[in-house]
């Protein structure tokens, strides 16, 4: 029922409002004496070298892409799991095929060396 979600939304507001409130209160009562040294990014005490926003290893993007593929699989499994008992043998065979196809995909990525981080 849609009305079930009303408390969830109210609690979401509280959950976001609470940290906002304590951060705001703390920044009002806390002292403020900034100096260039204080505001410098921390790099073990020496002056920072270059920019922090450098290029990243492509590995991270590939992991993100793999994640999207397999997360869709996971989401697809949820509704299946809920009505699993009604589907019986047919449901198990269908989902078995689906999992096998995705597992082949995982093995392909594995053999291509996507999962190697050395």
């Amino acid at each position: 029922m849609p009305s079930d979600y009303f408390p969830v939304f109210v609690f979401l507001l509280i959950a976001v409002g609470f940290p906002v409130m304590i951060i705001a209160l703390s920044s009002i009562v806390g002292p403020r004496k900034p100096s260039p040294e204080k505001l410098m990014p921390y790099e073990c005490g020496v002056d920072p070298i270059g920019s922090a926003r450098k290029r990243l290893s492509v590995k991270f993007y590939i992991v993100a892409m793999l994640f999207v593929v397999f997360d869709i699989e996971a989401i697809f499994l949820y509704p299946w799991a809920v009505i699993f008992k009604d589907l019986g043998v047919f449901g198990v065979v269908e989902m078995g095929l689906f999992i096998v196809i995705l597992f082949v995909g995982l093995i392909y990525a594995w053999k291509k060396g996507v999962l190697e981080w050395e």
Partner: protein
Amino acid sequence: MLEVVITIGIMLVKMVIVLSVVMLMVAYVTLMERRVLGRMQVRHGPNRVGWQGLLQPIADGTKLFFKEELTVDKANKGLYHLAPVIYMGCALAIYAVIPFGNEIEVLGRVIPLHIADINIGILYVFALSSLGVYGLVLAGWSSNNKYSMLGGLRAAAQMISYELPLGLSIIGVLMLTGSLSMVDIVNAQEHVWFVFLQPFGFLLYLICAFAEVGRTPFDLVECDNEIVAGYQTEYSSMKFAIFYLGEYMHIIAVSAIAVTLFWGGWRGPFLPPVVWFIGKVLAFVFFFIWVRATYPRFRYDQLMRFGWKVLLPLTLLNIVVTALVTLII
């Protein structure tokens, strides 16, 4: 009209109680962690502020509250301030769907002890815990600090890698229950707790939960001796406190979900349901601290290999075996 006002009033009272209890638990879990870790390393831990150090969390909180707030040079201001709010907000909002007790009767009115019983409870929990990753990544990226950046990236890759097995490890429970609602799942465990029917699923969930909240042995996100403090290096004052508290809030949240899904939720003999629930959650939190005192940290390539090559196939196997066994019986 009066009925609506009373309903909303009860709802708000429940929310305030949940918020206060969660904050109190978080505050004292920080103390518990320091004391237990101390004992496990044959030292005392903080025991000076108040009896047995019981006022230590209050002293820490007050100190951080009155500290100067620094915004690092060339930080991406908006995101820098937003990140801690996202992190803690997501951790806190999870408690909306967790049933922490049975129904109670107050003045002839039956009050169920959960804030909301939505029919997609589990999906809501996992959606929020995925959103929490944004807090870490944005904190790392907006800080204009190399260590923060590395911490944020590691957090993103680690959490999304372990979210897959985390989500898949509980499919077995859903197959046994036939519902996504947390209340239905607790009700389905009236006779036998799911940990006995899904021991393997529980083990996989537990391992992924450690990685998901970034605790030892998977604490590469903020691994102190490589990247200072990871994503929270540049945070000070209350924003640092929010990351600190948010981490414990996440630990308590994944413990509460483990208790709800596998350990019968609030069910238990003799004692009131709420006591059982909090007791079980604290037992899990103790386990988290115990593991931290016992195990060393993974290396990053080991972490990724373990997640993708071991845990993911094992969770799929768990689903297939559960499906076949359920079908035969």
